[in-house]
């Protein structure tokens, strides 16, 4: 704010001096030039009259020749004075307007507005650096849950796009250099409401810089970094970055899982999919020869995962030397039939279009499908705004780095229990995954399941704590009973139980007795969560579910019932 005033005053110096000089000159002239009164006697304007006259002349209001008609000399001077003062005014007002249009001025106005709105944030918020596809999606998902964010990006149009989104909460946004520590501080890094920093720009080095700055300035704040290479991942981890998300790695591991244990893949896919997306049919990729177009960061991660599962890939790459492609790689982009023939498209069972250009990826898929219609197709979609064309292209598996990063980040931040669950689940057998899938399918309609955590603590589940205090055991069964009909189950499955001492149970049984400090991960339909919240907050509902009796709520009834039973 101070900056703006200084800038304004500094720029207005010369115009204001011009206005004062024009006025002073006109006034002095009017005072010095002799005039006549209505009787023809010589008369001179006083300073007061001159100031009055010049004031309405300069602003072109024009009351006429006051108090007496002017002599010709006076009129001559008035003509000169009119042009002088009007030009001075135009100059001053023009400078003011051009200042308002000025890029630097508008930037400092935007900066002042941003710092003010950050200062007024009273609830926990995440600091999101880089609002590309991933950042934008992440902010929207957090906003859906009522969590606020503060966004900074180097690109103004991205901030503008964010402000046009119809979000439930207000997101302050600033266009500035995200790698600059002072920007981070202006965005509220040091505020105690700041719940975490997310470095989601496309450039690893910038993310690294953000992580270092925030770890130095606010060592206790969790930091999440997007990274694309193993090299920078190791670097980020070296100074204590809490979470590192590499979208290519995440996808490559999932993809490899599709070959080995499709049910497990389905579990992962469900638990980490976009909210309320329709339940997708699962396409199982065939084993055999695969063609991989583009051997960049994505291609390398996929090849590594696939060769781990014993699946051979033929690489098609335009820049073999630059990407250090292995022996036997075919030179070309993969968009031409000749290159694909060379790579053995007729014998291949699947193709992966993994270049960093969306148009090329689509072209690869279309060409390949012409040559071999039976191919299993996988495409990397780099830009979110190409959604529509990728959807109609009917591709078996789509890889969207932005979506993967955003989903992973939201899970890490809002449902840390889910990450623990997936880690343990990954170690289980395919049979176990089959059981889980059939259980979850049993409670679902046509939408993907929601996951949520229930923490047994006074703040979240006051009714349960109250029951435990009275030494009435509360089982998991009580939570998943429908509070409206105690014979029915809510459409949800308890997935994972983590006790206060960090002992963990996968798929806990219904008769598990809850303790204070337990955290339980559920998955199921969204409305089941709402009803479960009702149960754990309402002592009467919970008592009825656990004991089958209505609890007497008034003091008199309590006394009566005690004496009746005792």
């Amino acid at each position, binding site marked *: 704010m101070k900056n703006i005033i*200084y*800038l*304004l*005053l*500094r*720029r*207005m*110096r010369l115009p*204001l*001096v011009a206005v*004062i*000089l024009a006025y*002073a000159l006109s*006034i*002095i002239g009017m*005072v010095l030039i002799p005039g006549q009164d209505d009787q023809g006697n010589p008369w001179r304007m*006083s*300073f*007061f*009259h001159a*100031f009055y006259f010049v004031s309405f002349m300069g602003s072109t209001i024009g009351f006429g020749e006051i108090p007496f008609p002017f002599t010709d000399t006076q009129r001559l001077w008035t003509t000169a004075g009119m042009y002088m003062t009007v030009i001075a005014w135009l100059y001053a007002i023009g400078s003011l307007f051009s200042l308002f249009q000025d890029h630097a001025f508008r930037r400092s106005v935007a900066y002042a507005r941003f710092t003010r709105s950050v200062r007024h944030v009273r609830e926990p918020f995440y600091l999101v650096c880089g609002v590309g596809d991933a950042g934008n999606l992440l902010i929207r998902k957090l906003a859906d849950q009522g969590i606020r964010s503060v966004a900074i990006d180097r690109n103004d149009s991205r901030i503008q796009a964010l402000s046009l989104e119809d979000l439930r909460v207000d997101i302050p946004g600033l266009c500035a250099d995200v790698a600059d520590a002072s920007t981070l501080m202006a965005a509220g890094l040091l505020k105690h409401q700041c719940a975490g920093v997310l470095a989601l720009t496309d450039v690893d080095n910038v993310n690294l810089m953000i992580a270092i700055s925030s770890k130095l300035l606010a060592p206790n704040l969790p930091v999440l970094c997007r990274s694309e290479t193993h090299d920078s991942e190791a670097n980020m981890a070296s100074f204590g970055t809490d979470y590192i998300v590499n979208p290519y790695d995440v996808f490559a591991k999932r993809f490899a899982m599709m070959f080995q244990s499709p049910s497990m893949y389905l579990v992962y896919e469900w638990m980490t999919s976009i909210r309320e997306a329709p339940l997708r049919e699962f396409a199982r990729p065939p084993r055999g020869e695969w063609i991989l177009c583009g051997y960049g960061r994505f291609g390398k991660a996929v090849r590594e995962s696939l060769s781990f599962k014993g699946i051979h890939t033929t690489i098609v790459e335009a820049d073999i030397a630059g990407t250090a492609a292995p022996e036997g790689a075919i030179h070309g982009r993969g968009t031409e039939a000749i290159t694909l023939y060379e790579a053995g498209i007729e014998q291949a069972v699947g193709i992966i279009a993994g270049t960093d250009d969306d148009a090329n990826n689509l072209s690869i898929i279309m060409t390949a499908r012409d040559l071999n219609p039976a191919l299993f197709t996988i495409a990397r979609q780099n830009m979110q705004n190409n959604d529509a064309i990728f959807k109609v292209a009917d591709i078996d598996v789509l890889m969207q780095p932005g979506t993967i990063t955003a989903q992973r980040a939201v899970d890490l931040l809002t449902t840390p229990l889910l990450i623990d669950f997936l880690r343990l689940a990954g170690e289980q057998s395919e049979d176990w995954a089959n059981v889980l899938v059939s259980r979850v399918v049993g409670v679902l309609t046509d939408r993907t399941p929601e996951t949520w955590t229930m923490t047994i603590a006074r703040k979240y589940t006051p009714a349960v704590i109250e029951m435990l205090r009275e030494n009435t055991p509360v089982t998991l069964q009580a939570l998943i009973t429908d509070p409206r009909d105690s014979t029915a189950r809510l459409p949800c499955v308890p997935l994972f139980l983590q006790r206060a001492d960090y002992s963990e149970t996968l798929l806990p049984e219904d008769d598990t007795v809850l303790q204070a400090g337990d955290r339980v991960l559920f998955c199921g339909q969204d409305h089941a969560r709402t009803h479960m919240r009702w149960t754990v907050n309402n002592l009467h509902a919970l008592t009825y579910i656990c004991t089958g009796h209505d609890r007497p709520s008034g003091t008199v009834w309590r006394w009566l019932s005690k004496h009746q039973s005792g």
Partner: protein
Amino acid sequence: MNLEKVFFAFFIVLALTLNFGFFLGELDNPDHHNVYELFAALVVSLIATILKFGDRAHIGAVLLATSLVADLQLIAAVILWAVSVNATAAGMTPAIMASIVSLSGGALLANITSVIILATETVMFRR
């Protein structure tokens, strides 16, 4: 040589000298105090104020404050003059003249302060 500093010094010293010229003379004698001089002192003092607009240095801010004080005193004197001559039956009296001159005397003090600060700054920053 810094042209900005030259301009400011010129205006601030001119404001002082003009004001001094107006102030000089018998306190309540209208013949000793020239209205043109008061007008010139006010205009020059206003310009000196505007020249300090947007100065972020500490000394600049103090100079802005002292010249604002001078402006206020001079504007009060000018309004008093205009009102007494044009809006009262008695016109200019020695008592009112004395008030006007003492107001300009206050402005003179502020001008002197400005010049002292300016001189100090100039002496301290030898370049």
